[in-house]
């Protein structure tokens, strides 16, 4: 819609920038920072509810969903104006969420309540609440839309939810403090990061069997500090990029062989990451240093640091 504003009107109204943007939640500032991917500068800072963490766009990028954890709500923002349009009932302490491919159902991990809440973003109603393990955190929905995953940090499991019945059909143990889950593009595998365990566990989706465990070791960094948290697959599906928390590095993993190809130094306590729309760079949120590192995917080098608010956590990109 943003691109369809008639040229004649553009003289009267400010036309929203059409350059791609990276949106970053600042957990301790209660704001989001908007980074222009072209100029690599912060162009807007908008206020949010308390302790914003998870962040994601609707399929057409016309709506931005923000987990305002301490306000116990999911806020819906108009990304063109930075205005909060309304709030969604989310259950207590929403931390992360995943939008179903139907663009309507939002699966929310309620960290303090051991519950996954399913919210209809259109009717603004809670559709289901599913009892999971303690401190649910990571959320993922398969590309086919049939399976949702919640990882629970204290129970150390990935909980497999049937999105038709909203019931659990499997619970698989992983290493300590699972943080994040991602399906591969073909939905054949599920990857789960474990922060304290220091690993990624790979499951085949079909039978929920563990088929691989990825470990990380960075020269000169104590093993205890290597803590996998956020991760993303590259748009071509060949690589997985993993944020390794207080080791201040991200790992580049071959998605086929599970081999770690490279570690890249970024800012301090790296949480989450997102690819630019063209897949040529990746943006990492660095909680302790309060900045975002831009990594060039061709050279696999960190090329720029962008100062944002205090404790940047989540990041989402819109073209």
């Amino acid at each position, binding site marked *: 819609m943003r691109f369809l504003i008639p040229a004649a009107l553009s003289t009267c109204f400010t036309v929203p920038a059409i350059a791609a943007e990276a949106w970053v939640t600042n957990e301790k500032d209660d704001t989001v920072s908007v980074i222009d991917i072209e100029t690599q500068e912060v162009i807007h800072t908008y206020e949010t509810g308390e302790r914003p963490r998870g962040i994601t766009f609707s399929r057409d990028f016309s709506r931005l969903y923000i987990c305002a954890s301490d306000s116990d709500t999911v806020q819906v923002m108009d990304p063109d104006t930075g205005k909060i349009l309304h709030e969604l009932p989310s259950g207590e302490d929403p931390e992360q969420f995943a939008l179903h491919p139907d663009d309507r159902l939002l699966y929310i991990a309620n*960290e*303090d*309540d*051991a519950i996954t809440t399913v919210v209809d973003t259109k009717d603004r109603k809670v559709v289901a609440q599913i*009892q999971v*393990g*303690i*401190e649910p955190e990571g959320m993922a929905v398969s590309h086919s839309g049939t399976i949702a995953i919640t990882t*629970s*940090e*204290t*129970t*150390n*499991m990935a*909980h497999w939810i049937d999105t038709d019945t909203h019931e*659990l059909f*499997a*619970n698989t*143990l992983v*290493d*300590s*403090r699972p943080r994040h889950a991602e399906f591969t593009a073909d939905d054949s595998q599920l990857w789960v990061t474990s*922060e*304290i*365990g*220091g690993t990624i566990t790979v499951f085949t989706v079909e039978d929920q069997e563990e088929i691989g465990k990825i470990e990380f070791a960075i020269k000169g960094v*104590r093993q*205890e*500090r290597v803590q996998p948290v956020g991760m993303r697959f590259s748009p071509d599906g060949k690589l997985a990029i993993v944020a390794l928390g*207080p080791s201040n590095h991200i790992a580049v993993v071959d998605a086929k062989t599970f081999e770690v190809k490279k570690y890249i130094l970024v800012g301090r306590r790296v949480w989450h990451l997102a690819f630019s729309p063209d897949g040529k760079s990746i943006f990492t949120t660095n909680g302790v240093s309060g900045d975002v590192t831009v990594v060039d995917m061709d050279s696999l080098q960190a090329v720029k640091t962008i100062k944002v608010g205090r404790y940047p956590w989540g990041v989402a990109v819109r073209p």
Partner: protein
Amino acid sequence: MFHRRLCVLWMLICILTVSAGSAKALDVKVLYLERQLERPPVLSTLDAHPDDLGRAGAELALYENTATARFLGHTYTLDTVIIAPDENFGDVMREALADGHRLIVAHAPAEDLLALADHADAQDALIINGSAPDDSLRRDACRANLLHTMPSRSMLTDALAQFLVKKRWTDWLLIAGEGPGDSEYAAALRASANKFNAKIVGEKIWRFDADMRRNAAQEVPIFTQGVDYDAVLVADEIGDWARYVLYNTWLPRPVAGTEGITPLAWSPVVEQWGAAQLQKRFTDATGRGMRSEDYAVWAALRTIGEAVTRTKSADPKTLREYMLSENFELAAFKGRKATFRHWNGQMRQPIPLVHPRALVAQAPIEGYLHQVSELDTLGQDEPETNCNAFRN
């Protein structure tokens, strides 16, 4: 006692029967054994002494263990036995062992722990010490069936020493009381000073029998006169007098030890590394902040839970072996996994250094290196151990 919301959750968990697939049913029976003590009088009237200290940690851990267990077809039973100050520990202990308890989380002083660990019926039991900080229990008086989630005194004072030395506050004036544990705390401080190259430039015993609330401003400056020091280290475990030393010293210097900058297993001010969630669960359930004993007891029962989940066994021997192995890890909300030292059964863990309103630092302090784990820079390390019970 438990907050309503937790209770509802709890009931939900009990009612919910999730198909456990091929998982085998397993009931894990744990005893929480607490020895209550008479508290010596202290000068201040301001301190709250929660009745459920320690026990509240067990209840929270039970809730957490059960949340995982229901997905595996496991169940937990927690029996709570509290021994009043005038009751005979031995009698109650024998009864509990005769009842078949072999997984025990203990909140009791060192002599009771040893009596328990040495009892004939406890030889195939696994006891986890969630309260006693005595170094002797990790050294020559260690017992193979006794593990520790409470840090030892020397872990605490090593943590403090690392911080002070990093700040270059290396000359210490040591003031020790005559209360229970004070001389042990002072001894641990001396050993830590030696280990990390700090210097004790003066040592005093606190013998004032006046009421310091009225005259600290007059007495403490004179008491702390005469030597040049970078910090005043206080050993006053029951919290009797050391609080009146702060800001009343002759030289404008920080106070650390059992008051001021304090090394602890846990404190309500710890909030990083997901700790905010644990604190909230605890406060929702109890209406108060989580303290070191709550944390150590919580960690003890969570350790059992973690070992049961991974080994799918409730056999004390199997669990102990797993806990002491490299495979064991507990997410302990301090930023690094907690594991156990296989040579004396002590849980490795970071030590927060706090004041009542915030975390000051967390040890191991950056820069203190170790060939195995930086956490082993805190407390007695393997090469210097004289604990023989863990040698096979």
